[in-house]
């Protein structure tokens, strides 16, 4: 009997272990799906991950850091292997990324960064600074190096706001006859852009340009300029490459914007995750994605 038992154990016990052939899982955690920009990010990241042979699922944080924390907890508990992540808050999201890192889950940030040098495996971000250097250069050229202008900033707590502003000023401030007479936040919001611009125009009716940290504010500012009859006097510059701004550039209402590439950022994050699974570890902490100046000079290329 003992010999039979030994034989059975030998036959069945020595069979090779079945290897787990199920695909690795990638969580796509996005700040909000209530905005088409982020929907594009989410879908592009998920589609690329699936194309590379992984299981992918999109989680909507609804701009709520607490909900984002729940998504990370679920992803870690459910055995996800990587997170393609668009954070809700540069500071508030750090803890989630660190938690994932401790659990051995690699995190790749897309479009928005977290304020930590080593939490995420890599952060793939629009090169906002360089984009605004090119906008600044075009601004100086079209203003003939002189005139009064105003700046509408995005959310003051957002890194993109300041990278854009710094890039712009790194050029424009070298020309002393270009004078910024007001700098105010309009929170990246079209309606606020309209309101802030209306009040600025009352105090500074003689401005000849406005630089806006995104296209929504640029459209709001442009509306205010139409209402005050100054649309032909004041040049408007935006950032993002939104469709309505591109068509406004074509019809010579807006001077220029910078076109971002959300799909490229999202797809690069998925490719990085794939490379990570295959053993690569030396990722750049920040990977800038070039943005392109679209002006009345080259709008034909972007139609």
């Amino acid at each position, binding site marked *: 009997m003992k010999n039979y038992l030994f034989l059975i154990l030998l036959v069945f016990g020595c069979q090779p272990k079945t290897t787990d052939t199920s695909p690795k899982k990638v969580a796509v955690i996005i700040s909000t799906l209530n905005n088409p920009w982020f929907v594009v990010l989410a879908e592009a990241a998920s589609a690329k991950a699936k194309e590379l042979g992984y299981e992918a699922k999109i989680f909507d944080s609804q701009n709520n850091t607490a909900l984002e924390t729940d998504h990370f907890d679920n992803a870690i508990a459910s055995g996800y292997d990587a997170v393609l992540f668009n954070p809700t808050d540069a500071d508030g999201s750090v803890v989630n990324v660190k938690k994932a890192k401790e659990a051995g889950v690699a995190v790749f940030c897309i479009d928005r960064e977290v304020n930590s040098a080593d939490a995420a495996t890599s952060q793939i971000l629009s090169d906002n*600074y360089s984009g605004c250097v090119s906008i600044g250069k075009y601004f100086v050229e079209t203003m003939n190096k002189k005139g009064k202008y105003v700046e509408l900033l995005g959310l003051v707590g957002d890194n993109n706001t300041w990278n854009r502003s710094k890039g712009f000023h790194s050029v424009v401030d070298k020309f002393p006859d270009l004078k910024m007479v007001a700098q105010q936040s309009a929170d990246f919001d079209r309606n606020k852009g309209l309101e802030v611009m209306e009040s600025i125009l009352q105090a500074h009716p003689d401005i000849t340009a406005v630089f806006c940290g995104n296209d929504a504010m640029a459209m709001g500012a442009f509306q205010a300029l139409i209402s005050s009859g100054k649309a032909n006097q004041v040049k408007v510059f935006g950032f993002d490459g939104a469709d309505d701004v591109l068509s406004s550039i074509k019809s010579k209402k807006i001077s220029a914007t910078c076109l971002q590439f959300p799909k490229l950022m999202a797809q690069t994050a998925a490719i990085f995750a794939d490379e990570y699974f295959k053993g690569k570890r030396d990722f750049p902490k920040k990977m*800038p*994605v070039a943005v*392109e100046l679209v002006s009345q000079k080259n709008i034909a290329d972007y139609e």
Partner: protein
Amino acid sequence: MNKILKNGLGLLILGVVAYNSVYFKKLDEVKKGNGKNTLDAKVYANSFYQDKILKNVDKSIEINELTNKLKTNPEETFKQYAHSLGIGNIRYFLVKATGKVTKINENTIDIEVDGKPYSVATEFIFGNAVRDASGIITMTTFENTMDFNNVSSELNEIIRNKVVPDLKKKATLGSQISLIGAIELNQKHLKLNEIEVIPVFLSDK
């Protein structure tokens, strides 16, 4: 008397201890101290320009050779000669050019290289062309976004303060100039008739 001496001595010791226990520093100095680990972009840019860019000018391609290659085989030419720290369509080339000065403008100097016209920037020295064109710099060098932006900015300062004044002095109408330069091109929307060269180094021939 002894009591006065003892108290005086005690007060003196207390004073010395108190003085050495408290330090006052300017907030600016403290902030600077906290930023010890951040890159000194000015120092980095100076040494990068002297020790890396100037010692790798032989990596440059003659400008007409480049434009001819871009016309016949753009994809392969970008692959072989273009560089950039980031990803996307904007790429940079390190070029060399010897040409005759045909016009001096407010923001540029026009030159003709074997019959082909190019503009050399003298006013708008901005962007990442100088930093990226040589292909020597890598993203893993930097941890902070602002570090690699600041390096670009400082490299452009070097060009603005050292190279451009020399160029303006040498480039009289009809004179011959030789330079190493950096150019930016968009891989998807290639415009070979709008090339603007940022001067990186003036060579003798």
